[in-house]
């Protein structure tokens, strides 16, 4: 009887998330006549789909690694690094905002910075360095630089508490045994933090992998080599592949990759809690 109390919530999430998602998963294995088939999954091996998945995975991995590494350095700077409290409060406050500042406005901010007419582009031109055409904001690296803007803050927000939780006595014990600062980090600090660092990077990977609006605003949604989310989006507005089954399989592929990513994240998260 007590379960009756959660029925409204369950009904809502079934109607607006579970049922639609499950139906897409099931339909990935059905042909147009509703018979069981693996053809849609096999069709994913078409070169332009494979290259789109690879492109998206590379973009997500690069931005997770770069954003994760730099976010870690920033989190280190405001915690163990001993920067004054105004810097800590400022960076954490800003990160809270910036991790939510993405999509179309973020793309515009980078167009105003590194686009053809952007501030930095013009500024560099004045110094005799022309970014274009060697660099383009609408290319892989342009997207990567933009994505990192929402990756770093997320890393800072998650890693700062983890670094705060590093126990002082560990460091003192290491130093008492004659360890240098580098040795402490190499043999004590980093091994303890590693699951948390890798787990958060997995989260950043998923964060970039699911991104759509930012890439859409930068590439216009029509680029040949493009992220998977844009391919899926194009399936809604017009059945661009002229094959509904393939669209379902594309979405299934995203769900599978996201499930692996988030699973990895929660596994590493549990590992890192051993030390608490």
């Amino acid at each position: 009887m007590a379960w009756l109390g959660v029925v409204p919530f369950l009904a809502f999430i079934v109607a607006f998330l579970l049922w639609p998602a499950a139906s897409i998963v099931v339909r990935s294995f059905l042909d147009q006549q509703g018979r069981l088939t693996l053809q849609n999954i096999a069709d994913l091996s078409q070169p332009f789909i494979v290259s789109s998945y690879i492109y998206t995975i590379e973009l997500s991995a690069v931005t997770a690694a770069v954003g994760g590494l730099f976010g870690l350095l920033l989190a280190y700077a405001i915690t163990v690094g001993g920067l004054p409290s105004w810097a800590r409060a400022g960076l954490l406050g800003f990160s809270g905002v910036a991790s939510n500042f993405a999509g179309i406005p973020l793309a515009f901010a980078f167009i105003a910075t590194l686009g053809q007419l952007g501030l930095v582009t013009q500024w560099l031109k004045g110094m005799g360095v022309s970014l274009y055409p060697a660099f383009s904001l609408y290319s892989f690296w342009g997207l990567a630089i933009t994505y990192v803007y929402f990756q770093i803050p997320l890393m800072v927000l998650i890693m700062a508490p983890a670094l705060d939780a590093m126990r002082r006595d560990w460091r003192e014990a290491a130093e008492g045994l004659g360890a240098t600062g580098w040795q402490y980090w190499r043999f004590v600090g980093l091994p303890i933090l590693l699951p948390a660092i890798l787990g958060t990077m997995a989260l950043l990977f998923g964060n970039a992998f699911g991104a759509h609006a930012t890439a859409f605003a930068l590439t216009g949604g029509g680029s040949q080599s493009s992220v998977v989310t844009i391919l899926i989006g194009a399936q809604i507005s017009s059945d661009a592949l002229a094959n509904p089954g393939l669209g379902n399989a594309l979405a299934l592929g995203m769900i599978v990759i996201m499930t692996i990513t988030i699973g990895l994240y929660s596994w590493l998260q549990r590992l890192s809690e051993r030390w608490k």
Partner: protein
Amino acid sequence: MKRASFWPWLWLALGAAYFIIPLAATMQFSLQAKRGTLGFTAYANIFRDGNFFSSFAFSFQTAMATILISVLLIVPTAYWVQLRLPQARRLIELLTLLPFVVPAVVLVFSLARTYNGTPLTNSREGLRVLLTGAYVVLSFPYMYRSVDTGLRAINVRALTEAAQILGAGWPTILLRVILPNVLLSVLSGAFITFAIVMGEFTIASLLAQPAFGPYISLLSSSKVYEPSALAVVSFALTWASIGLIQFLSRGTPGQGQMAGPR
């Protein structure tokens, strides 16, 4: 605490440059609509545009509806799980986190495909229901986490029993006893939901809804400086929402979470 050496300052300086330059560039871009001078022409143009207000109002109303439905679903559910159904906690928690596994574009794709041919996709009202429903789902991770944390900080059982002894029914208990005690949590969930809905592009545009996100995007195809002005407005909106949350929850550290409209 030891004094910071050279390296932490260098990381902070690099970070500050990377974060501030794009904002400054957007700001400057938005102010140079009139050649050679800085001024608010781009902003004036936006505020003269009727579509600005209608799309803003559309998203604002959608945000309010989303928050209302999300609160009505999450507060009683989290309360009930705490009071009577602790064995369901893991399941409910897992369900609220699903939006991280199903990206917005896959969510809207599934909704559009699954309900294709029903009144939900055939009519203007139906599409708006789908849009709001999808936003409510997106709000779950934040709303549930915030409300659940709030509920854990109060003694739900004692409050409920005290209210029952005094003769209160369920609606009174929820509305006049529990809700006021977790109001701050509800508000912080509400503000983050507001920020997400106001900036959301993917779902709104793929459902062809006249929302604020698609409006900003559309404007960029015809205008040069106005989109930057809108980006500034949008950033200010996010800043205000998140700033309010941080103000309301002083003392509790910022929470990292995959967020919002990517």
